[in-house]
């Protein structure tokens, strides 16, 4: 059935410790990355404009990219050209002097294609950003706690529920470490992706737990069935997110590209966490935990 099929892994060859070791090691490395970044830079993940304030201009200009910084009195933090549109650049600044920067862009940059030089402006003051930061943290915390509470309510036993919570935690930490390494800044879009990840990643865990705990039958048989469905699900979402992330990046639609890419990374982590970490905990619970 199908052009691709979910491989059957012979879990009996590995002990619980061996299975759990890989995802736990990755989680450990991810936490180290975040801690390192915290020590070096002051935050686990670099915060984007939404959270620390700053100004972002999307300009359409015939001025060559390397001359754009010269148009402004302040050195731009970053300049990114939009792949799908010629002469379009996204320029970011630390300062929040939106008016001054817009004025400098209008006077010093050559217009192109008859349109306005400034196509998009967004600026956030530092205190507004701080507010947003607190709100976003609260949102993430509430979402995570809510999800954990629901996991416990659904399965009403400690080990399977905590397995879901631990893998979800790892699903969040790994993309965060990825962002920190690759230099993607935390923005509202990536926070949305992280929240979405809480919802998405738990699906496959619930599916696995449900198959193993609530159905009769052999452990490995149930696991295999859950994996067939679960991996199809996750891979489908991953391809959709990858396509969305890449397409949006080409078009210069930041919000969509960051959501797509973070979800892709998070779902990859989820595959590992669900079928190595969660599974090993479940197996231990099924064969040793219940007997106690």
């Amino acid at each position, binding site marked *: *059935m199908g052009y691709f099929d979910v491989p059957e892994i012979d879990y009996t060859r590995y002990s619980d410790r061996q299975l759990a070791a890989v995802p736990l090691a990755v989680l450990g490395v991810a936490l180290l990355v975040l801690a390192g970044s915290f020590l070096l830079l002051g935050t686990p993940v670099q915060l984007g404009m939404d959270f620390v304030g700053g100004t972002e201009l999307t300009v359409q200009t015939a001025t060559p990219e390397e001359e754009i910084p010269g148009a402004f009195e302040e050195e731009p933090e970053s300049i990114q050209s939009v792949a799908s549109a010629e002469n379009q650049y996204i320029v970011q600044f630390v300062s929040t002097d939106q008016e001054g920067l817009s004025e400098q862009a209008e006077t010093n940059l050559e217009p192109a294609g008859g349109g306005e030089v400034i196509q998009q402006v967004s600026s956030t003051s530092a205190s507004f950003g701080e507010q947003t930061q607190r709100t976003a943290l609260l949102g993430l915390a509430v979402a995570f706690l*809510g999800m954990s509470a629901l996991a416990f309510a*659904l399965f009403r036993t400690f080990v399977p529920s905590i397995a879901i919570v631990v893998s979800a935690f790892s699903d969040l930490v790994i993309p965060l470490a990825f962002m920190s390494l690759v230099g993607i800044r935390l923005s509202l879009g990536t926070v*949305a992706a992280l929240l*979405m990840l809480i919802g998405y990643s738990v699906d496959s865990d619930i599916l696995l737990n449900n198959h193993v705990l609530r159905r009769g039958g052999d452990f490995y048989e149930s696991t295999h069935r859950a994996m067939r469905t679960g991996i199809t699900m996750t891979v489908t979402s991953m391809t959709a997110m990858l*396509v969305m992330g890449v397409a*949006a990046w080409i078009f210069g639609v930041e*919000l969509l590209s960051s*959501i797509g890419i973070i979800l892709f990374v998070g779902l990859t982590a989820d595959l590992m966490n669900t079928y190595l970490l969660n599974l090993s905990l479940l197996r231990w619970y099924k064969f040793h935990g219940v007997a106690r």
Partner: protein
Amino acid sequence: MNPIAFVKEYWRILLLVVFVSAALVALFVPGGVTDDDTVVEGENETIDAGPTNLEYGLGLDGGTRISAPPVGMSADIDIESGQEREVETTLRDELGIDAADAVVRYHEDDDRFTAEVFAEEVTAAEFAAALQEAGVDVEEGDVDDEVTQQTRDEIIQTIELRINEAGLSGGTVYQEATVGDGYYIVTEVPGMSPGELRELLTERGDVQIVAYYPGENGTQTNETVLRSEDFASVGSASYNDRQGYHYVPVTVDDSEANDGSSPAADYQAAMNEYGFTGEGIGQCNPNIHDRETGEFDTDHDAQQWCLLTVVDDEVVDAHSMSPDLADSMASGDWENDPVFQMIVPSQQDANTLAVNLQSGALTAPLDLEQEQTFSLEPALADQFKTYSLLIGVLSVLTVSGTVYLRYSDRRVAAPMILTALAEVVILLGFAAAIRMPLDLSHVAGFIAVVGTGVDDLIIIADEVMDEGDVSSRRVFESRFRKAFWVIGAAAATTIIALSPLAVLSLGDLRGFAIITILGVLVGVLITRPAYGDILQRLLTDR
């Protein structure tokens, strides 16, 4: 098969068909399903904008949004009614602030008084001290770092008026709560540049007429004779062809207070007393005020009788009283028909003056140091619209491709993709029906909905086709129910994970969360059961 049995058999599919049709009507039939009268005006615009009834927000239509908190603080105070003015005056004198920056209010619904100060430089301690000076027992800790709800409502009203008077439709103003107990005032206007909107928001718009005249011992004196609230009606900006000047016609309020005085009568009396209607007629040197730089020159030889139009403490223009007006004031007739023209240098000044007079002053200024600005050119917004559509289509194609590769059975894959699309159509229809303005974040939500939707359909398909063929309806139903437990649990987690976003004020993300949550609900309640029915029909031998 009789009709009742038919409905019983296929009610899930029928329900889906009903919802999809309703959504299509809402989307494509001009006028849609909105039966709201106020909508008619806006409807024309949306028809012009495209083939659907969808409304677009700033991120997909262009425009400017500025969010900023109001400046000021408030405190509950315990005073007797009638003491309000006294406390206001004390606050003003103690803190050295403008009259408009100290307000004492009585809140009828819960019978209490509040004092507010709208000045950046005043600290909570100073505010409390000034209140104590006024005989009110308020500690620094009792001071609330926020203005009252009434003040915010007034600000919102004033800004709305200003947007409307600037001739722009489609603007919205609302307040948004932050995690602390603060509030931001958010103004969104399509078709306005950030500079224009900022100007509209920063202008306090406090208009005064100040009499500049020789006082008792011959020194020039300033006296405010008319304030914004003294005008009964304000005309629109006009131009006098014959003499070539711009002006705003105004009518001064002549309704009498208890003591028989009225703003019009007071103004007339003041003009007569200060000599404007006698020796001062025509005695205002035009050079006293430089229209170009706006500078006001107090260094002059002759005595001057000037009426100054002052907006936000800046002199806009200076004039003497015209002989005609002076005559009717001197005779006391003017107060029966209290109209005059406020002359200003340019068309633009006339416009802003009219707007300021009509909308009144902003109760409290906005703190633009703490603002957030977003602005998008309509041209780029159009590009974003196209891109969103493309990205959406690409994502759906990818999902379809993956699903087909996995099952290589059209009977399973095709209805799966169609069902996921039906979900998006229903959501779009819903968005059109409630006139929810769509933004990029909503687009992300739609794509997320396709993603979660297909996930759940995969669960159903796998579960149902597990353990060999589905031969009987009973077997199908039991497997379907099992699948539904997982789907319900998954849906619940997604809703819980995203609900904080739907409630908290995280700007762009609220739309994403709302659409995703709605999508999950539509999926669980309508489309997924229907998919089960379709699958059953295709797989069971009947």
